[in-house]
């Protein structure tokens, strides 16, 4: 790591934080500038569609959408997401505890879970539509599956990873099986599940997008397909930004909650951030 060496001989004209902000803003400005320049160059390329609208056109489209149907679409998408995510987390926690703590069941079923896991929930989209149609159920199934496949690994891992010194302490305190489960296994599992649920946010949200693009009856994805089919590039890009923003907000909110729920994991975070 070359950072300290470089920081060390640079005369401290600007504090590191200020430099980071200035350069970060500069980076964003340059990126938008390049976008704008490209849009100017491509505007004269001729063709029916304006392939790359300038940033401002996308921004206006974003405002327009925000004044109109955005909130209705967002609520549809978020509802699908929230239900699927909740169902996925709960099922993964329960099966994770069972498969993680019971050696026999684990030996029998874990290989199957391992075989299915790498096959992304995205692959299930057409089958899910055959089974559940284009409505809510089908999307909830897909999101739930995506979340389940991520969280189950964390649940199994957490249920198995009781530190040996805590085991000894429990024996010393004379705990019975149930007390051990409640005070050792469960907290460890739930902490891991919490981490897994955050990791699963993006997997779940990505699945919402694909499911809504394919089974386009409602939500942000359906809107995205709609504007795509009318060749409205600025609206397509605005909808993409909405997807990104929603993902960002969810991730930030969940990180905040996670930090509150498990403060002992984040003692260092205040220092580094």
């Amino acid at each position, binding site marked *: *790591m*070359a*950072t300290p060496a*470089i*920081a060390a001989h640079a005369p401290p004209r600007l504090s590191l934080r200020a*430099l*980071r902000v200035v*350069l*970060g*803003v*500069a*980076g*964003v400005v*340059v*990126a938008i500038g390049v976008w704008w320049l490209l849009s100017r160059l491509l505007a004269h390329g001729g063709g029916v*569609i304006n*392939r790359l609208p300038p940033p401002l056109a996308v921004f206006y489209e974003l405002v327009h959408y925000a004044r109109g149907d955005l909130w209705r679409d967002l609520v549809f998408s978020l509802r699908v997401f929230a239900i699927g995510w909740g169902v996925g987390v709960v099922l993964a926690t329960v099966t994770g505890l069972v498969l993680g703590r019971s050696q*026999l069941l684990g*030996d*029998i*079923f*874990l*290989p*199957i879970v391992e075989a299915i896991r*790498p*096959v*992304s929930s*995205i*692959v*299930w*989209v*057409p*089958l899910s*539509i*055959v*089974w559940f149609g284009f409505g809510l159920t089908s999307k909830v199934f897909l999101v739930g599956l995506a979340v389940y496949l991520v969280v189950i690994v964390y649940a199994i891992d957490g249920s198995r990873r009781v530190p040996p010194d805590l085991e000894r302490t429990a024996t010393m305190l004379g705990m019975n099986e149930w007390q051990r489960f409640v005070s050792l296994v469960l907290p460890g599992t739930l902490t891991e599940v919490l981490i897994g649920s955050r990791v699963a946010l*993006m997997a779940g*949200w*990505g699945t919402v*997008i*694909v499911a809504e*693009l*394919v089974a386009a009856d409602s939500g942000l994805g359906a809107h*995205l*397909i709609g*504007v*795509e089919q009318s*060749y409205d*590039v600025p609206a*397509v*890009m605005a*909808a*993409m*930004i909405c*997807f*990104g*923003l929603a*993902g*960002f907000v969810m*991730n930030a909110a969940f990180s905040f909650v996670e930090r509150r729920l498990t403060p002992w994991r984040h003692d260092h975070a205040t220092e580094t951030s």
Partner: protein
Amino acid sequence: MTSTQAISRRVLLPAIGVAMVLAIWEATVVFYKLPAIVLPSPFAVVATLVDLVQTSAFWRDVGVSLYEFVVGYAIGVALGVAVGMLVGERPMFRMAATPVIESLRFIVPFAWIPLTILWFGTSYAGKIALVAYAVFFVMVVSTARAIAQVEPTLSRVGTMLGMGPWRLAWKVHLRAAAPMLASAARAAAAIGWIAVVAAEYIGASAGLGLMITNAATSLTTSVVIAGMIVIGVVGAGVSALIGAASRAWLDYR
């Protein structure tokens, strides 16, 4: 653990598990008299699979999907590692690029599918661009992180031995980051492969994704399930190939 116990744990019990799942699947089909449209029996799926591999259309779909994946993956890895090295080596560049990279990273690749269709139509180029985009961000972030974690003594040794910054970056940092890059390359392959399939659902003229959506629309469910199995197997194969290649490369560990 004795060897009989090991065999029973690793082979026998999983076999029982698979048998149970297949039995429940078959029993459900028979008991509820499900039509093949809803859920074909496992035997029907196997029969479909056997039929499929004998058609040239199937191999064409496999070939198209793999082609789109391989080209996009190569572009994404090359660009991603290059930019990731810049981010990892140059603090100024890192500070300038981080907000842009982080905000683009939240627009998941799937959200780009409609735009790639508007830009590239249903051609291969759209999928290649999409895979490259998906792989690029995974590689940028992991490369930068891996380079930041290189043992500082190695950098000092390199400088002591007379290496300049670029030689140090290329010969020492990148090489020391290789194990992390290898696992990132594997994760990126999984994401890229799924991106191909998802893109083919929405706009394609050939490919495995198109094959199973078409099958779903015409309600030939056994083809859908067979296709899912093929997609899974190809994905696992790609991942195993990258794993084997990186193990051969990282033989010093």
